């Protein structure tokens, strides 16, 4: 990655030339798309597109357009002149390796990947399709005179961008419910029609879609009319969209949809597949409320004239907003008796509508401005959920988002929302992390905004963050969350009303702009207010609020990472102060930055809540906070809380000297931060019991996990029972109580934890041990009823197994479950019960592999047999009486896998394979695949992995493909350099080919595979390519066998299980867990073997297994600058060549020269890398090497 940076950091002059060149020299004023032949049998479309362009210079000789996987037949200028065109897609081979395995590393791939993305980036004036205007047309090109470019094209069996769903079976296509829809990721309209595929080029559109008589075409824009074709067998839908709209926001869905006009708002139309009308009506019943909410909140009208929601099968995402339409997954639909799905569905629909305002209508200027659209839309959705589901739900949602961000950033690295511009180098805002990579920051700053493609300024990721087509989808997801929180932080800084005014101002400007027309050169900037950028937004904030938010934006938007505080304090009795110390210890760790600025610390004292704002200026901040109240535990007086209410507390647990009840940092979540507060357990208990803020309660629960004491148990029990407490806190308390109970197992008296609570709440009146008939009208009780059994199933007795009492309790819940009088479906409840059964399973004493066939039904112990029986029954029943979304099947598959994993039944992938096959409902498939991937990690062979990869590459459902890879990343089949038998060169080559060539059409999946490659091999060349890898593998095996010796004992022990003492069982169990869960821990020895074998060729590295410490900061700079030169040379020569070098689709031989140059360049580069290449288990640290030395240097500067 350092290469890509250095490349971009060329000399100033050259860079300027280049930047000047890197823009579009025309404006798009209108586009027509006409799809005349949409053929479901052949999965093909035939189409015509006409772009009206306004040249921005007289000597425009060629233009680039975006077009991918489509076949272009003919291009006409002004309907007269035929235009020559060439096609080149760099993703067809991202990085030319010439089958040299040594180069198949992400270190090499990443820069090439970014380059490929930039080579087709329309904002740089580039694209896949090059149109060369013939000489006779040159006089037509006068600055500002519109020209029409008409393109005839076709598309057959698209692999991405457009998705056809064609169920097999009897009847016509319409009867079978065949449909198709746009399924592209980010800006991927190029996959189905030629366009300027960027968000910054909005224009009005017209569409014509000719479809079969039985079908409906739903597309962006307003439906003008529907007309039969002359043969009366097909009809044409005419759409027009007058509001300028960017190409990526054009959506289309064709199918035999059922139409439902919203009864409240007739401009809104809902579409669903045949047969789903009843649940469609239920699902969308309250959708109009979100419309009203947004319009009121923003005091602005919905910007378009209509809105459509289309529910399709096999959708890639739950929600994909397009201009005037939201493409939704059909799995969002639900009938009236369903509870849990309602929350998700409402939120999803609200999100799609929010994105109509910010996202579709107002769109981003560049990729680096994505955070604004995402952030504002998600923020608005958040406000709606607050209104819809309550303040606590909202706060909890924010808190969870924060945790997700913190987790991801600490794991993978800090997210920079807007990498296009470095933060101003003020000492207060400059992030130490970034100052390391100062040289390119500097450069960024120099040419500031002008350059098109933002560059990677964070050195931590395995993918370049410069383009969405190279970003990890996971990063994308977390980035949205972070954007949301940043907008919320802005709200806290300038105020809710003012922030809404900023939004309103943007909408008003955009609305005005959207009504203008673009005729000629004088009006080419007419629509500039339709896009938003960080700078524009910051200015708008300033105009409206009068507050300069530049430093806020620098410090949170342009700087990566989050803050991390750990707080300690002591109470000084003499001075009546709290001596506080806040440290930022982890600064420099992945994703953690140093924060300087105000920080609020809230002290809850006996006399009330007191907030103190501290100024944080260094890594350690100390403060003495004077307490307002004297300790006075004997006076009985109510204690005021932060909300103003006054409560009675039992103060006997606290320190009689101190008036402090608890301490919190940043209670309002005004920063993105991770907190570590150290306070005694009784303070946490007070916080849990009495603090009104749900985030504080949740944090207290997490902290209390450490304190297995009766007092803590009581606090948790009281919380579970307290009806005034927010339900999710109560649920968390239940799970926490499980952990506490397990830790206290030796001293635990009485019935299993929570049993009494459950019986009290849900037992029937006359016989508490029989559960009442279900009645879910009280949702709090419903969620408790679902959760407590799962929490209880996690209980373990002194032998490490689930107490038989609990298992019987669970089985009774199954037996007495009676939903006949309930208004709501109990599907989620039943699924939770199955999940609970799964959670009771502990590793078996027997230890036989599945291959020996030793596990039979007889070897099941009594309770396990009952569990298996129950699971079998539930699974079978589900076949005959399927419940909503087959939730029970999903839970059963998880439980079966757990039984397999813990050796109760033979481990086999067969069942899961059948459930994960095409033709099952989505959730079931995912559950099957999850089990398969778990199996893969423990027992999987290379063939099993191939099965999974086949799905990941070829499955018909795009979402499944994506999810499989994501799951493989989360649960990789083997650890980096672990010597697994699956880790073979063929696998590495297969993955490499996917990212390098095969997945050229699908950016999302390609980036998923990049993440997978990283998870398996790190940044460097995969180890399996090493010659003696096989040898080292053998060694591993041998050692592994050696390790297995204790297991042998277990086997023997199993022969006489009856005789075994219970203590013995416990021991065996623990061994078994280790053996099963981490079957292939690499013995550290191999690495050293490996090192010594290669040490000769590694000057400077030989024998030095301590990767990063072997580097000096200077070393890296040298390497970097060397790279820079190489890159510059090749880059400049390349940029000169660029115009001449445009090749046609079949250009390989022509291209060869260029490629060989690349190759030689890469060769050059690979040399400095090569010393590090064969290092193995240090790979990861090395790969992020460019950051680590700098971190070290930073630490010194503190």
């Amino acid at each position: 990655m350092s290469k890509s940076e250095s490349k971009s950091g060329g000399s100033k002059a050259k860079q300027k030339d280049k930047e000047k060149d890197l823009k579009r020299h025309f404006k798009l004023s209108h586009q027509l798309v006409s799809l005349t032949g949409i053929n479901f049998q052949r999965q093909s479309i035939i189409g015509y597109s006409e772009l009206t362009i306004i040249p921005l210079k007289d000597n425009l000789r060629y233009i680039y357009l975006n077009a991918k996987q489509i076949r272009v037949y003919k291009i006409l200028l002004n309907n007269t002149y035929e235009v020559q065109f060439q096609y080149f897609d760099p993703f067809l081979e991202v990085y030319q390796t010439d089958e040299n395995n040594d180069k198949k590393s992400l270190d090499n791939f990443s820069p090439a990947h970014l380059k490929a993305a930039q080579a087709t980036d329309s904002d740089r004036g580039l694209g896949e399709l090059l149109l060369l205007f013939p000489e006779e047309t040159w006089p037509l090109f006068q600055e500002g005179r519109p020209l029409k470019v008409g393109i005839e094209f076709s598309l057959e069996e698209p692999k991405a961008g457009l998705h056809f769903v064609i169920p097999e079976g009897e009847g016509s296509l319409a009867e079978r419910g065949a449909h198709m829809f746009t399924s592209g990721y980010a800006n991927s309209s190029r996959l189905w029609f030629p366009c300027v595929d960027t968000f910054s080029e909005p224009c009005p559109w017209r569409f014509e879609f000719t479809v079969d008589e039985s079908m409906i075409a739903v597309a962006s824009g307003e439906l003008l009319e529907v007309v039969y074709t002359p043969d009366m067998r097909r009809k044409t839908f005419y759409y027009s969209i007058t509001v300028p709209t960017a190409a990526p926001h054009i959506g289309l869905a064709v199918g035999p949809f059922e139409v439902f006009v919203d009864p409240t708002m007739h401009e809104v139309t809902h579409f669903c597949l045949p047969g789903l009308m009843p649940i469609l009506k239920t699902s969308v019943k309250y959708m109009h409320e979100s419309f009203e909410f947004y319009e009121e909140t923003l005091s602005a009208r919905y910007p378009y004239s209509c809105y459509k929601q289309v529910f399709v099968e096999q959708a890639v995402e739950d929600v994909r907003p397009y201009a005037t339409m939201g493409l939704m997954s059909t799995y969002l639909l639900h009938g009236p008796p369903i509870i849990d799905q309602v929350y998700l569905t409402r939120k999803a629909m609200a999100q799609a509508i929010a994105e109509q305002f910010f996202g579709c209508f107002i769109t981003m200027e560049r990729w680096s401005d994505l955070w604004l659209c995402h952030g504002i839309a998600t923020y608005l959705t958040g406000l709606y959920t607050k209104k819809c589901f309550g303040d606590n739900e909202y706060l909890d949602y924010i808190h969870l988002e924060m945790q997700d961000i913190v987790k991801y950033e600490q794991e993978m690295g800090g997210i920079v929302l807007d990498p296009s511009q470095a933060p101003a180098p003020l000492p207060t805002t400059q992030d130490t992390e970034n100052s390391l990579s100062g040289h390119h920051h500097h450069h960024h700053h120099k040419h500031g905004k002008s350059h098109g493609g933002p560059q990677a300024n964070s050195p931590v990721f395995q993918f370049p963050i410069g383009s969405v087509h190279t970003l990890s989808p996971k990063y994308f997801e977390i980035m949205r969350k972070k954007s949301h929180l940043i907008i919320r932080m802005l709200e806290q800084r300038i105020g809710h009303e003012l922030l809404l005014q900023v939004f309103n101002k943007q909408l008003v400007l955009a609305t005005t702009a959207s009504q203008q027309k673009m005729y000629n050169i004088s009006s080419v900037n007419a629509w500039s207010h339709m896009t938003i950028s960080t700078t524009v937004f910051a200015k708008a904030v300033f105009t409206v609020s009068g507050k300069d938010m530049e430093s806020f934006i620098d410090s949170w938007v342009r700087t990566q990472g989050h803050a991390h505080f750990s707080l300690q304090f002591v109470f000084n009795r003499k001075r009546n102060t709290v001596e506080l110390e806040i440290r930022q210890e982890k600064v420099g760790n992945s994703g953690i930055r140093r924060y300087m600025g105000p920080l609020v610390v809230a002290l809850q004292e006996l006399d009330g809540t007191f907030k103190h704002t501290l100024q944080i200026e260094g890594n350690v901040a100390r403060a003495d906070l004077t307490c307002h109240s004297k300790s006075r535990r004997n006076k009985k007086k109510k204690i005021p809380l932060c909300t103003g209410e006054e409560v009675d507390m039992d103060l006997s647990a606290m320190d009689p000297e101190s008036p402090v009840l608890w301490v919190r940092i940043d209670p309002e979540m005004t920063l993105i931060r991770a907190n570590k507060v150290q306070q005694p357990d009784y303070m946490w208990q007070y916080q849990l019991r009495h603090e009104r803020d749900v985030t504080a309660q949740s944090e207290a629960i997490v902290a209390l996990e450490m304190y297995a004491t009766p007092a803590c148990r009581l606090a948790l029990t009281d919380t579970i029972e307290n009806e005034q407490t927010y339900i999710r806190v109560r649920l968390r308390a239940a799970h926490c109580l499980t952990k506490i109970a397990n830790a206290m197992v030796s001293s635990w008296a009485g019935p299993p934890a929570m049993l009494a609570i459950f019986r009290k709440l849900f037992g029937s009146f006359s016989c508490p041990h029989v559960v009442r008939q279900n009645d879910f009208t009280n949702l709090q009780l419903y969620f408790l009823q679902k959760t407590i059994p799962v929490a209880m199933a996690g209980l373990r007795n002194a032998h490490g197994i689930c107490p038989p009492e609990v298992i019987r309790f669970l089985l009774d819940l199954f037996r007495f479950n009676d939903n006949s009088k309930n208004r709501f479906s109990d599907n989620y409840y039943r699924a939770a019960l199955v999940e609970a059964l799964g959670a009771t399973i502990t590793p078996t004493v027997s230890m036989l592999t599945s291959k020996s066939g030793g596990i039979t039904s007889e070897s099941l112990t009594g309770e396990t047999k009952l569990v298996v029986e129950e699971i079998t029954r539930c699974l079978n029943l589900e076949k005959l009486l399927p419940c909503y979304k087959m939730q029970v099947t999903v839970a059963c598959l998880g439980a079966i896998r757990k039984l397999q994993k813990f050796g109760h039944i033979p481990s086999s992938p067969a069942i899961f394979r059948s459930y994960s096959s095409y033709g099952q409902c989505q959730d079931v498939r995912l559950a099957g695949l999850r089990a398969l991937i778990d199996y893969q990690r423990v027992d999987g062979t290379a063939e099993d992995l191939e099965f999974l990869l086949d799905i990941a590459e070829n499955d018909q459902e795009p979402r499944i493909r994506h999810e499989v890879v994501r799951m493989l990343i989360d649960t990789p089949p083997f650890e980096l350099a672990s010597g697994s038998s699956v880790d073979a060169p063929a696998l590495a080559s297969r993955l490499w080919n996917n990212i390098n060539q095969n997945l050229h059409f699908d950016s999302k999946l390609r980036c998923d595979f990049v993440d997978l490659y990283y998870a398996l091999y790190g940044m460097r060349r995969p180890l399996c390519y090493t010659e003696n890898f096989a040898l080292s593998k053998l060694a591993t095996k041998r050692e592994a066998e050696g390790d297995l010796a204790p297991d042998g004992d277990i086997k023997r022990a199993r022969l006489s299980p009856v005789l075994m003492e219970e203590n013995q069982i416990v021991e065996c169990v623990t061994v078994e867990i280790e053996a099963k869960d981490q079957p292939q821990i690499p013995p550290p020895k191999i690495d050293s073997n490996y090192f010594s074998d290669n040490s000769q060729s590694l000057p400077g590295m030989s024998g030095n297994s301590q990767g990063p410490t072997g580097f000096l900061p200077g070393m890296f700079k040298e390497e970097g600058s060397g790279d820079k030169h190489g890159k510059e040379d090749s880059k400049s020569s390349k940029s000169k060549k660029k115009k001449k070098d445009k090749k046609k689709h079949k250009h390989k031989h022509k291209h060869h020269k260029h490629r060989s140059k690349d190759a030689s360049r890469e060769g050059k580069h690979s040399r400095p890398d090569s010393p590090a290449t064969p290092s193995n288990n240090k790979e990861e640290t090395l790969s992020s090497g460019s950051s680590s030395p700098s971190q070290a240097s930073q630490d010194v500067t503190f």
Partner: protein
Amino acid sequence: MAEHRTVLGVCLGALLTEAGFDAVDNIAYETMLEVLTSFMISTGNTARNYCELAGRVQPVVGDLVMTYADLGIDLRGIERYARRQQRLVLPALGVGSAPRPITILQAGSKLPHPSHIPEHLPAFPDPHAYIRTPTHKQPVTEYEALREKAAAQKRDIERALTKFVAKTGDTQSLFTTDDVNIFPLVACKPHPQPFLDALMPKDQVFDEEDEDLELQPPPKRVKRGLDLSQNTDKDSDGEDSSPPSSPPECPDSQSEVGKDILQAEKISSEDPIDNPYLQAVKKPHKYI
């Protein structure tokens, strides 16, 4: 009838033996039996006719004489025949135990006749014919037991059903060994439209009532003439769209204003929802 036939058959056999036969063909025997039967029936019928003609209820010898005369049967020598020596004496007919009416349900004991009813009158029928008889045990009303029973019943039904399906269709097994029949899992089948089953569950039928209640259209929003596209149709619609309500309840709206309101409401209720997707497909454009 069958008894008569049996008796007649025995007589016939005796006659034949007397006549010197040792054996008889089945068909001949049957034929002769029919003849004999027919003869006996005509004898009986005619004799009864004569006796009824004479106003009696029981035939006397005279009636029989007349009968035989009628049938053209000569009675001379019958006395001798009756006193013949070698006649066979048939064994007394076994008084076959008369099949008693099967009492399916004997409930209670039969009541003896009260004193005012003579003994020869028929006995009372089974008591359950005229009194309430307990046919079942007292129902269990204890909640726990009921739940227990309901659960067991439900479980039995489910088990039988799944077992049946598992036996009749494809199965999978959790175990690799032969014991396929233990814990059989009904195999999952791919469905062309898997979402239909998943989204429209059949596991429980819910009352439609409250659903309908909720589904009543919420009050219509005043339509918003949506700005940007400046559609003239739309704007005019926006003006005349008054909130639809049920037809006016009070009939005293005969005034002009009332009429106007009526009119307006008529229009708005007749006015179909203005949504392009509800409009008819147009005929193809004519090519000029």
